[in-house]
């Protein structure tokens, strides 16, 4: 009876959290990071609902919390997508690699022996070891 055990839900929520963190770190696009953040928030909501079902004396409280998490996630997505739109209008690209305006003191075609900044400078098609 896995569906009547709180640990199942907690493990699924932990998986969603970790895979969201992995996505935020790994993705190189704004949209990908945003989606991964949504996965993290969903994991948090699932955790709240699991504790609400099995632990809470008043089981309406966790549902209220999860509703508020959903509202915050919706607001976050709206703001994030509007940022993407604004960035696209301003720079005509939404590739985070090319949005390096604050990096202006470093020449764009620097010699390749500069290992520290090499990951920041590559273009999306490059093969990076």
């Amino acid at each position, binding site marked *: *009876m*896995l569906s*009547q055990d*709180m*640990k199942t839900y*907690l*493990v699924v929520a*932990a*998986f*969603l*959290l*970790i*895979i*969201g963190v*992995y*996505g935020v*770190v*790994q*993705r*190189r*696009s704004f*949209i*990908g990071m945003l989606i*991964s953040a*949504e996965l993290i928030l*969903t994991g948090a909501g*699932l955790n709240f*609902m699991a504790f*609400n*079902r*099995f*632990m*809470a004396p*008043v089981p*309406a409280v966790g*549902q*209220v919390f999860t*509703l*508020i998490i*959903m*509202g915050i*996630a*919706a*607001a976050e*997505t*709206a*703001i*994030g*997508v*509007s940022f*993407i*739109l*604004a960035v*696209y209008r*301003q720079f005509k*690209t*939404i590739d985070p690699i090319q949005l390096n305006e604050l990096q202006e003191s470093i020449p764009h075609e620097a010699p390749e022996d500069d290992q520290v900044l090499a990951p920041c400078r590559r273009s999306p*098609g490059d*093969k*990076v070891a």
Partner: protein
Amino acid sequence: MDALLRARVFFRSGMRFSMSWPDIFLEFVFGLFVVLTVCGGLLAVRTQILMYTVLGAAVAFLGVAGLFMFLNSTFLAMMQILIYLGAICIVLVFGIMVGYTPRQVAEQGIRGQNLLLAVPACVAAVVLLRSAVGRTIWPAPPDGQRDFSLVAVGRQLLEQYALAFELISVLLLIAIIGAIIVVTVKEDPR
């Protein structure tokens, strides 16, 4: 309560086959939702095509909605589908269509040494959290009949959590206005 006791007896009795057919069907559906969640999450972070990322996230949200239904809250399951699938995924698809072409391989992700570090780190984190969940001795669940109904949720929202309810509406209003302002800002003439 009854179900928890039955589950405990079921596991103590050496996995003797004591479930009825409706229970087995419910467990199957539950497993299906868990698989949907896990596979959707994996698809969302591993695929290189951005449209498939949104698809994976939508599948994961759907699975979580099913899990909510198993957690005695049909209302939250409906809200999950309405908000996450109906609103957030549509907005994300819209965001993708603005800048990317839909089937574009939009990113390379991390490769080589970083991937070798990132994947074991994440697997280790999942295993650690799993063992923490398994080792914790959870307090006994409260006794008595508890009210999972929508009426109770509405009462809590408008009585004890009225301030949070008002604040979340103000937050949503500010988010809408802010999004409109950010999008309609004049282009910098350069």
